[in-house]
Each structure stands twice: as structure tokens, then as C-alpha cells.
């Protein structure tokens, strides 16, 4: 039997398969190199970068919950300069497209980072994070207001010609409103969802289990919410959508593809199993073979109504 084609094209980025890590769960790629062949995954997505290095939040920063985890890392990152100097050389040698996730603390900073990334040949595309719940100034306000979201996307669009993926927050009343605003402002693709704001309490100490009190919930617990939002967004826009949220097994990824995601990202599952993405890729391939699907495109958006 001929192997099915899993290749997809997102915003002009050619991916050999639709599976990539979710930003912030895969470091800068090299951390996982000992555990899986980085050339087998669809793309590498970096930890969110900012103009200057960022310290992140005080500890504790993570807390396990039922079928999920809360994190309030606070977007700790090495900053754009150190990324280019110390992280990019490693990624250059890997034959897999690199998508750089980034954010700014101000509108200007968003533009600035985009401009700095605009001419790097190693960077296949940008993923604009307007949705991190742990950083207020540079994050959530942009992601929850359609006008602000459109503004930052327009600005970034004007500073870089790279394929532009915009990552949306689920912490909104109607994600399709933001999705459409961002599409109109020039996004080439969307990525949903980021984490959902949550909180957990240590009943003995009566303190929040995160120093930041609230954090972003990720993992299998949120999958039904993510699938619903991806389904809604796919109906609302014409640009491709990358689905993310709680994917652990191949079947989870397939749910997202079936509702119309053109690709998927795997986040928390990397912590559980560093080779999770490989199993997912193999599982998708297997499913295509079993179902007689020759090209993954036939599967994408095949939801029966």
C-alpha cells in the first residue's frame, strides 16, 4: 500500500506532516534533540521570544491538576539577541522549518521583534502570541480585544513579510470575533488555543499553588474546549487554522484535523512523553491507511454534519 501523504502547507510554510510542538513546551528545540529526531516533525516552534531577555515569574510556576497542568512561567526567555546568537545556529542545521513564537510588552516591541526576525533565513515563519494569560501588558489585552488584536497584527504585518501565524486566547466570549479581526488585519494563519486561565489552591497552606496565583491550564482536560473553538474558528475564517490543546494520542490530533485544523501542535504531552509527536505522526499515518485516505487533505475538515 502506498504511504499516505501527510504534507500540508500553512501560510506558505511547507510541512512534511501536520504535527509540531506548541510554543513553550519544547524549549528552543535542542532540549528535545536527544529524545526524538527533529527532522521527523512538521516544524519546530520556539519558546515565546521578546525583545529583551525576560526573567519570568517567581516560583512555584507549575502545578499539576486533574488531567492538566497550570503554568505561570511568565514568558521567561533569552531575548531575541541571545536567541539569534546561541539558539539559531543549532536550528540552522536541522532540516525542519522553524517557527518563532514571539510577543512584546508594548505595541512597539511587537513591531520591533518582528522586524528583527524579518530577515533571518532560518526562520520559516512567525507565530505572534497575543494570548499569554500570564503577562498582562504585552499579552491578554491584545488578545481579548478585536481592535487591539487587529492593530498589533497590522503592525507586525507591516514590519515583516514572513508567514504570520497569530495565536489566539480561549479566554474570550466569542473567539470568532477576534479570529476575523486578525484575519482581516493580515494574518496568514491562526493558532488556537493558548492556555485557559485557571487557579489551584493548597488547602493546607491556604495559598495559591502558583506564586502568580493564576496560571494557564493546558493538557487533556482542555481538549474538548479547544476542539470546539477550532471548529468555530474554522467556520469563521478562510485562512488555515492550527489546532492545539490537550493532544496526547493520535486520536486527539485527528479530532482537530477532522473539525478542520490544517495542522496541530502538541504541548503538555511532550513533558509526559518526549516522543509523543512521533507516535502521533505514526498514528495519523496508520489511520489514513486504515481509512483509505491517500492525502491528509481529504481528512482535514471532513466533519460530518
Amino acid at each position: 500500500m502506498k504511504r499516505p501523504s501527510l504534507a500540508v502547507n500553512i501560510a506558505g510554510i511547507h510541512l512534511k506532516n501536520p504535527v509540531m510542538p506548541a510554543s513553550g513546551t519544547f524549549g528552543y528545540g535542542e532540549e528535545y534533540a536527544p529524545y526524538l529526531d527533529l527532522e521527523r516533525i512538521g516544524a519546530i516552534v520556539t519558546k515565546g521570544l521578546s525583545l529583551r531577555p525576560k526573567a519570568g515569574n517567581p516560583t512555584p510556576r507549575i502545578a499539576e491538576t486533574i488531567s492538566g497542568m497550570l503554568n505561570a512561567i511568565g514568558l521567561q526567555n533569552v531575548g531575541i539577541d541571545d536567541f539569534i546568537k546561541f539558539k539559531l545556529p543549532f536550528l540552522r542545521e536541522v532540516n525542519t522549518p522553524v517557527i518563532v513564537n514571539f510577543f512584546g510588552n508594548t505595541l512597539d516591541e511587537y513591531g520591533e521583534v518582528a522586524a528583527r526576525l524579518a530577515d533571518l533565513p532560518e526562520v520559516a515563519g512567525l507565530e505572534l502570541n497575543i494570548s499569554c494569560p500570564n503577562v498582562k501588558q504585552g499579552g491578554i489585552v491584545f488578545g481579548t480585544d478585536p481592535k487591539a488584536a487587529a492593530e498589533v497584527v497590522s503592525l507586525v504585518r507591516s514590519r515583516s513579510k514572513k508567514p504570520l501565524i497569530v495565536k489566539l486566547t480561549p479566554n474570550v466570549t466569542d473567539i470568532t470575533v477576534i479570529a476575523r479581526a486578525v484575519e482581516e488585519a493580515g494574518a496568514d494563519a491562526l493558532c488556537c488555543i493558548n492556555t485557559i486561565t485557571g487557579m489551584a489552591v493548597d488547602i493546607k497552606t491556604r495559598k495559591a499553588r502558583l506564586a502568580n496565583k493564576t496560571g494557564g491550564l493546558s493538557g487533556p482536560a482542555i481538549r474538548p474546549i479547544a476542539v470546539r473553538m477550532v471548529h468555530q474558528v474554522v467556520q469563521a475564517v478562510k485562512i488555515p487554522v492550527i489546532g492545539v490543546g490537550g493532544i496526547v494520542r493520535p486520536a486527539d490530533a485527528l479530532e482537530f484535523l477532522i473539525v478542520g485544523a490544517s495542522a496541530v501542535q502538541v504541548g503538555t504531552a511532550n513533558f509526559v512523553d518526549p516522543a509523543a509527536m512521533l507516535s502521533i505522526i505514526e498514528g495519523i499515518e496508520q489511520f489514513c491507511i486504515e481509512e483509505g485516505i491517500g492525502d491528509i487533505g481529504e481528512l482535514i475538515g471532513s466533519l460530518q454534519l
Partner: protein
Amino acid sequence: MKNFKTIVLSNQEISSGYYRMRILAPGFGKVGKPGQFIMFRVQTSLPPLLRRPFGIFRTGFLPADCEGQPPKEYLEILYKVVGRGTTIMSGLHEGDRVEVLGPLGRGFDLGAAGNDKILVGGGIGLVPLYMLAQELVKSSRVRLLIGGKRRDDIIMVTEFERLGVNTHIATEDGSLGEEGFVTRVLERKLQKYPQAEVFACGPMPMLEAVQRLCAAENVPLQVSLEALMACGVGACLGCVVKGAGHSEQNPQYLCTCKEGPVFRAERLDWSKLTDEEGTCEGCKS
């Protein structure tokens, strides 16, 4: 450093609430260093979601059972049942399928041969010190100071003594050894052996006391830290501690999983190590 699916060889309660698990681990002994750890997971069981970090207690070989076959290598962990994950672990049996990611992190630096070595372990903190002692006894005199709340918390003494390590026990309730904190013992030893090097692992208040004593006496100290971990490989940034010279402007966060779990004491910011409060520019929610 790899992730491998394997099986439990044995899993026994060695003291009330303390278990010793032997796991089949071909090739592990060649790569694992004293002070390194693994991320452990029960195969096919989703809860708990995240892996659990455990120090490598020791590695070894099973007696070969048939001619020609290479002897089987194993690794051992020692763990205390404290929550959901360790409770599930305590119910595992021979043959149960588990997954091990490791060896991970930076282990102990063995220091100068010949110098007196003082190991300080509180409770389950003895774990990473065993393989360290195995190495150190080859060229130094090794003393182990063991602390714990009660008699039940004092484990593995004979194992260390068999290596030729000199052991001293202190329990808070006096039910075994001397009564009081193990740091009182350390204080005396430091007076006696000013050339010593110290290696410590245990609860944070103990480590802080050890650090103060060693700093006062100008004695080199390495500590093995615990931190909440999601990935174990430096990717999630969940396990950071503050490094020396840390400030908001000049953040010096160190990953416990990758740059630790063993740190030279002077690399850490002891004033803020356990300060959970803090604030950060963007996030004062």
C-alpha cells in the same frame, strides 16, 4: 539521556512509607553519574499526568541466569509515598510496565581526592548520596550525617556502612541516634575537619542551615535541590531557582533539572531561594 520503556523488577517497602524499586535498565550504569535523576512514569496510566522526578539510588547487574547471555542491568530508586503519584507507584509489581527518562541533570563533582568528605542527608535526601559515596570512598574518608524526624525516616544506614562510610544519625525526636537536627552534628564535624568538602541533600530548611555553616567556615558545599518539574530537560522552565546575583533587571534563573539538581552553593541566591513571593513586571495579578 534517553527515554526507555521498561519493566519493574521489584518494588518493596523498606521502612514505613519508604519503597525501593528496581527497574530493568540496560546500559544505564555506563551513563548515570552520582546526583543525577530520572523522570518516572507508569506506562499507559494517564494519571498522574506529569512524570515524577526521582534520584538514582544505584545501578547494578542481576546475576546472569543463563550461560552466554549478558547480565541484566538495573537501576534502583528509593521513594517516600507522599501523594498521588507515589501512591500509585507503591502498588506496582514485578513486570509492570514503566517508562524512564534519564539519566538527567548534573551530578556531583567529586572534589579533590584525599580531602575529608562530609555527606549530609535528610530523610529521602540520602538517595543521591549513595552513588556519590561509592565513588568518594575510593580516594577519601567519607562521613555521612543522617537526619530525620523519627526512627522510620532513617533508612539505608547499613548500605552506606558497607561501603566503608562512617555514619552519624540524628533524629528530631531522639528515637534513633542523637536527638536534634543533623546540622548540630555537622557543626561539630566542621570544627574537626576544616579541610572537608560537604555534599548535602534534603529539605530546604536543612540545606539553608548547612549552607550557613559551610559559608561561615569557608568550606566548599554542593547541594542537590528538589523543585516542581514538568519536563526534566530544560524545556518548560517550571523548575527554576534563583542564581547568585539574580535581580529583576538581570535575571539569573537556573533550571534545577538541567543546570542542577546539584549546584555548588555559591551559584545560588540563598537569600531568595525559597522566597515564593516576589513579583514580576508583567504579572501582578
